């Protein structure tokens, strides 16, 4: 029982095998891709492993504290930011191997030509619970 984050990047991950920008796909290919993602999430709910899935808009703002009584400073979005998160899925699985298997399946979502994108997904473990028995 461990939670993992499957991170999908707009930028920052190594290039996918089938690396064609989405606006170059046919509308049917886009629909097929979306359907695959929905089916994947639905299947995970069915296996009792789904926790959450969210998508993020690409433009982000940097914000920081600027001292007592002053409004926060904002900056960006920066076109040159190397790592941009596109979205994530959180899964709750029995093993690391299972998490790898599921990330592999998600990376097989179809893209241009209806072929798998082979996109690199970043798999990050959540911190687990602090066990009661340690000695």
């Amino acid at each position, binding site marked *: *029982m461990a*939670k993992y984050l499957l991170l999908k990047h707009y930028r920052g991950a190594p290039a996918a095998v089938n690396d064609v920008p989405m606006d170059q796909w046919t509308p049917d290919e886009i629909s097929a891709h979306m359907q695959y993602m929905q089916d994947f999430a639905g299947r*995970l*709910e*069915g*296996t*009792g*492993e*789904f*926790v*959450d899935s969210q998508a993020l808009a690409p433009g982000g703002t940097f914000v920081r504290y600027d001292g007592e009584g002053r409004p926060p400073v904002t900056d960006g979005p920066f076109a040159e930011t190397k790592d941009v998160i596109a979205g994530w899925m959180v899964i*709750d699985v*029995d093993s690391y191997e299972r998490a790898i298997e599921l990330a592999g399946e998600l990376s097989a979502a179809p893209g241009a030509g209806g072929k798998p994108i082979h996109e690199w997904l970043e798999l990050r473990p959540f*911190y*687990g*619970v*602090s*066990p*009661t*028995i340690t*000695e």
Partner: protein
Amino acid sequence: MTSQLNEALLRSLTPSVLGILVRRGADFAAAEDAVQDALVQAVRVWPADPPRDPKGWLVTVAWRKFLDATRADSARRRREDVVDEAPVPGSTPAVDDTLQLYFLCAHPSLTPSSAVALTLRAVGGLTTRQIAQAYLVPEATMAQRISRAKRTVSGVRFDQPGDVATVLRVLYLVFNEGYSGDVDLAAEAIRLTRQLAAVIDHPEVAGLLALMLLHHARRAARTTFDGSLVPLAEQDRGRWDTESIAEGVEMLQAALARDRLGEFQAQAAIAALHADAPSTEETDWVQIVEWYDELARLTGSPVVLLNRAVAVGEADGPRAGLAALVALDDSLPRHTAVAAYLHERDGDLATAAGLYAEAAQKAPNLAERDHLTRQAARLNAHR
């Protein structure tokens, strides 16, 4: 009856009510749903109108719910045949129903997370929502996990005895790896293990219950108000629950006297030696090392050897502990943290500080990460 008492009583009756439905011919999955429905109704109705015979009430209501659901089902005729053949209420089962439920819910065909969820619902009487909250997953996901688990064991015969070791592993997981939410999973694990001990006479069941009681006794002293970990050596032993310790020790002694040692008794023996000591210095570390040797022999687990190295460090000095550590795979979880601790005890603070920082990076949970970072910071501040 207060609502809390109500809930405790309800939940303690869950497995026997479910057992009765299954013995009357209801299939496990449908019976389990019916019992949950009856529990919900009881919570609603009992406060204003408490039944004279709570168990009888639950059996009657759950059976009616089962029949209603069955009649609404498309497979109605087949199941009604089963219902017609149902034995009269009150027939005595050959094997204890509650025990059979524990076996079924911990069946080896289930994954650990499924077995935990099913046990908490079918034996513990918790709702799907409560279990979902305890494991921080959506209720829909937990509902699916439980219904899949029920399908997985649907072909398992209810009257087949199971392996008590699988049940103990599930209960250990509930105790050791629950989040602290609305439902107190550690207390729930103790309740379920106590209930198991009442229906099966087995030294390892007693050993696990003793282990849980001994660790639960230290709970108040284990963390500060903000949730930071307090290591055993620094715990305020005056805050340990002496009643719980006394019960655990007594239970363990009775189990050990039967001379059928197992891993939970050995772990409990180690916990008992800690519980017995007024301070770290006055702890019988030599005997703790001996118990770790037993535990290593019983389990063959490298994690046990890692903990043994800490005990050796206390019994024979940090150099001896470090020597014991050298023999172990340094990719073991917490290996770096143990090395940091032993180097600190040995007076090599620079090495220890570096290792604490490294161990923090590898920590499996936030509380340990923060604790190890503080250890590194503490040593760095004094250099």
